[in-house]
Structure formats: C-alpha cells, structure tokens
C-alpha cells in the first residue's frame, strides 16, 4: 500500500527558511493547552515550593508529611485496591457479556451502562443514605434477619468507599474492556470451546491475553479517577480519618487559605498518577507506532 504523507511541509517551505505552514495552524490548540493545562499545572508545582512569604522552601512538604502522611498512604491503598477490584470485576462481567448470549446477558448489557451517566456527587449522595447505619441496606438486612439493627454494618469507611467506587467505575471499565473483547473473532472462542475449554479457560487464555491494551487503558483511567475523586470520600467519610488527599486539599484551602500546602498535596497526587500515566503514554505510543508500521 502506498504511503501518503500529507502532514509534512513541502521541501520548498523549508528551503525558503520560513515558518512551516502547519505551525500557525497549531498555535490556537497549543496555546489553549498551555494556558489551561500546562500553566496551572506548573504554577501549582512552583507554589508548592514557596512558603507563605513567597520564599523558596520545603515547609509545605514538611507540614504535609507531618500532618497527612497517613492520608497519603490511605489514598494509595484505596486507589490501588479499588482499581484492582474494579478491573477484575469488569473483566469477569465483560467476558460474561462476550461469551454468553442469553436474555439475561443482553439485559445486563443494556443496564450496566447506567452508572456511567451518573455523576460522582449523585453516587455519593445515594451511598450516604444507602450505606448509613440505619440506611436502606442495613434496614433491609435487619428486616430479613441477617443483622441486628442495633449493631449495624459500619460502611462509612474503606468498605463503603470501595462499594461506591466500584458501583460507579465498574460500568465504565466494562465499556472499555467489553469493546476490546468484541474485537476478538468468534472463531477463537469457538475453537477453544470445541476443544473443551470452560468459561474461565477462555477468559484467562484467550480474552485477556488478546486484550491487554484495552485492559491497561481501563486500569489507568480508573486509577486516575479514584485518585482525583473528591466528592465521594468527602461526602461519605466527612470528618472521619484517615481520609483522602483531595479532602485534605479542600481542607487546607477552606480553613487556612493555605494554597502552598494544598499544592504540595496536589503535587503528591500528581506523583501517584504519574507512574500510571507514564505507562499509559508509553503503551499508546507503542500502539501508534505499531499502527503506523502496519500501515
């Protein structure tokens, strides 16, 4: 197949020494990105290293480690474990939707998407009443005799947070992973079935290995959403400790107008997602190159 190069400036422009014609076209988009993303990002990093008087110092980081070390670890634990849980559950459900073709699977295939369209703040408000000590869940369990309402399940903590995150993010992860699974030709699954492979063997030996990239994308996006989520931990945990970095950031700003420490917490959260983001970028660049090579 002939390779068509359209985005490269004609050699004449280069010889004249003028600005390649694509530069002016890029300016609006690049300027927008610089102004709206790069500038606040860099300025938050810079301010995190300035004290209240604007003098370079590490005081914000000292305060952050002093007061919020436990919250940082908590955030990391919440993010990693919930990402793992979300992805595993999403793989299982996506595989079920892919492999089974029953009325039930078609029904689930339609219903699961609902969660994607509900914002976190609404999910948080739902969870606040659903998971409360005398909320819907506990009252139902008490009426059916599973628990005693005087010692209900306490869910305004790590468990409740996990429930909320999964409720909201599993559908999102399914959407990505199921999309990947649909790209796999039926013949692979039929071949596996005809040689006696069960559901788990098909998932572990065919669907997952052939879909690493979509699973990776889902993992990174889910992880980043959990690290950056403010409303769910704020509304569910309230004043409880430990809490997440995002709640601490709001706290530093609301009560102390302390943008320095808030920014240092922000920088730490960048670091938390940086590893995942770097991996995501590397993978997408590799895919892009592979795509280009194939073309």
């Amino acid at each position, binding site marked *: 197949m002939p390779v068509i190069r359209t985005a490269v400036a004609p050699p004449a422009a280069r010889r004249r020494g003028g600005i390649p014609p694509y530069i002016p076209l890029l300016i609006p988009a690049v300027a927008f990105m610089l102004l709206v993303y790069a500038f606040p990002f860099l300025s938050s990093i810079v301010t995190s290293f300035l004290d209240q008087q604007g003098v370079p110092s590490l005081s914000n980081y000292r305060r952050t480690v002093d*007061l919020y070390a436990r919250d940082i670890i908590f955030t990391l634990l919440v993010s990693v474990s919930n990402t793992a849980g979300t992805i595993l559950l999403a793989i299982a459900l996506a595989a079920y939707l892919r492999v089974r073709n029953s009325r039930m699977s078609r029904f689930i295939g339609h219903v699961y998407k609902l969660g994607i369209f509900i914002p976190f703040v609404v999910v948080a408000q739902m969870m606040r009443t659903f998971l409360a*000590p005398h*909320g819907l869940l506990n009252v139902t369990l008490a009426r059916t005799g599973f628990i005693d309402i005087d010692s209900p399940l306490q869910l305004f903590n790590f468990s409740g947070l996990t429930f909320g995150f999964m409720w909201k993010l599993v559908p999102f992860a399914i959407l990505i992973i199921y999309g990947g699974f649909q790209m796999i030709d039926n013949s692979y699954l039929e071949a596996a079935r005809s040689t006696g492979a069960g559901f788990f063997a098909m998932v572990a030996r065919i669907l997952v290995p052939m879909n690493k990239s979509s699973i990776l994308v889902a993992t990174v996006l889910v992880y980043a959403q959990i690290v950056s989520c403010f409303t769910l931990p704020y509304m569910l945990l309230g004043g*409880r400790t430990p809490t997440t970095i995002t709640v601490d950031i709001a706290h530093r700003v609301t009560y102390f107008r302390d943008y320095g420490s808030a920014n240092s917490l922000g920088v730490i959260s960048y670091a938390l997602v940086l590893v995942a983001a770097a991996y995501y970028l590397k993978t997408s660049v590799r895919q892009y190159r592979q795509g280009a090579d194939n073309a």
Partner: protein
Amino acid sequence: MRKVTVCIFSLVLVLTFGGLVFGGGAREEAPTNLVYMTAGDVNMLALGQHVLGPQFEADHPNYSVMTIHTGPGNAGSQRILEKLLAERDAGREKWDVDVAMVHEIFMTWAMEEDLLQSYATELDTWQYVTSPFAKSALGADIEGYAMPMFHSQTALAYNPEYVDDPPASFEELVLWVQDNPGKFGYNGIKGGMSGVAFTTAWVYWQTGAYEKYTSGPFEQSEVDAWEAVYEELADFNEYVTITAGNVGTLDALNRGEIWMGPVWVDMFFTFMDEGKLDPNMRLALPEPGLPGQPMYFVIPRQARNPEAARDFVEMVTSPTVQAKDIVQRFNWYPGIDGSYIEGKVPQEVFDTIYRDVSPADLARKSQAFPLADYFSAVVESYERWID
C-alpha cells in the same frame, strides 16, 4: 442564521444599555441602582433578590436593588474585599458597592485596610442591638462599622425519645457519652463548621481561656500547651460517632443512629420545616456555651449611595423585617435583641425558636470564634493530635 443575528444584536443592545445604567448614564426617570453585594450560601441571594430588594423598592420607588452574590464561606467575603480594594487602589471617587453582607473574618481584613464607613450607631435601629458581636469581631474593634443582620448559633440537638435530660454542661456531656457510647455524633473538623464549632468550644471549656482567645494577643505558648486538651478530646472521641458533615449529623439524628450532636440552629429548624427532621427533636446549649457567628451589613467608605444604603440596612434591621423574614422565614436568630421581635412573629414561631435556647441563654452562652490565629491553631491542632 437570521435568528442568530437577532440574538447577537439584542445581546449587544442589552449590554450597551446595561452598561450605561450601571455607569450612571441613565436617563432621569430610570431608578438608581443600589448595589447590594452578599457573601453566603444561595439562600442569601434569594433573600436579597426576592425579599429585601422588592421590599426596599416598594418604599423607595426611585431605587432599584441589584443583588450580587459572591459565594459561600470566607471565600465569598474575600471576593467582596477584593472588589473594594480594587476600587480604592484605582483611586475612584465613587465606589460601585453601596452595601455588603459579610462574615466576621471580613471585618478584621476591612478594618485593617480602612475600607468602611462608620454608620451603624447613627441608625434608628441601633437601639435594638445588644449583641457583643456588634462591637467586636474576632478581636477587631468594629463598633459603628457593622450592623449584624442575623446570628447563626450552634447548639446540641438531641432526640428526646432517648434522652430525657440533656447534659447541662460539658462535664455532664463527657459522662453522658461514656454511658451511651456511639450515640453522640459530630463531624470532626473536615466535615463542616458545626464540628469546628464544637472543637472550639471544647478548647474554651478545657482551657478556660475564652477571653484571651477571643481578644488576644496571640501567643504560641498557649497553643503548645493544648496537647493535653486534645488528648482528652481524643479519649472523648473513642465514645462518639464521627458523622459525614453538618447535614450528616442531622441525618444521623433523624435516622436514630445517634441521639445527640452539635448542629447549626438555623439548619435544624429549616430541616424541620422541610420535613427532613423529626419535629420532636430538641436543642440544648450546655455550659459554658458553644460558638455562633453573625453576618454583618457594611457600607464601603466611598459608597455611591450611602444614604439609601443606610435606609436599606435600617429596613432590614427593623423589628418587623427581622421578625418576619430573618426569624420566621429563614430561621436565623435575629441580629437585634430577640426581645424586640416578640409579638411580631406568631407566638408559636417565637416559642419554637426560643423554646430550648432562650434570648437570655444566647446572651450568656453564645460564644464567639477565636482570633484568626487561634482559630487556625484550633483546627490544625486537631489534625496534629487527633487524626
């Protein structure tokens, strides 16, 4: 395409004439704008737009009240400060804002910058003001510069079904939580101001240094000595439920998960009115008290219409408006002395609002928040020693 052109043309027209009116270039018949800038929650905007504005315009047909809302919390007051600072620094003769509604912290900032005029003592309604908050705010001397519009107060809400005899003091409260573990709930310091108010009251009670913390000067040695105070609070916390915010405390109370907790009184009554809280719930204000805070009317030093602004403040602080709108409609405690509104609100409303916490209780047990530095220390010490 034609519709778009018409839309753009109308927009330009509106903007041009709006600008003329705002800039004072209006024709003589058009009413003068009285610019009222308010911090606070959206209910403050509703109050200005739907209640105070129309009432003032009815009495002063040559004025039109323009309500501008800057947002909740100290950040809302901060924006008003920035506007006034900008006008002062630009060296303008007449400033846009005629009257503003601000938090306590604003008073400390604005007094330092000399942005306000002294007017309150000249109002007819000043005679009804007895609150100490009208004289000082977070340690700043503000007498004359601010007129309290309403007072928000924290108190212990309790469920009389389970609590016959609410604790009359913090000592009794400590014993009560030990007898009823998990049944007292508050929201710590990251879930809203009712928890912060409770923590502040705890520090006042344990140190007995209310006067010092509210009038100054700030001494770091005081703060360093608080470790024991917070250790006691950490022990206390062993027996309590930490709730999910101001609303979280009220919800938990309503669902019967907790039997007692500190709440904002106005939220308590509003929730009851809206059917979100069991109307049998009661309030108590234990010794030595819990903090509350007013919101104030201020008039900028170079306000364009200072006379009308004074009339506006006088109207809102009159016993009639205080009774009907501030107390009855919005469930705040009045900015003026509660005894002056008696007879002006239906007796049952007066009895409900003052049933458990009387005007005398408020005068004696309503505490102020401490000086800004102590306030930060109260919150940060909690993080340091309890979290």
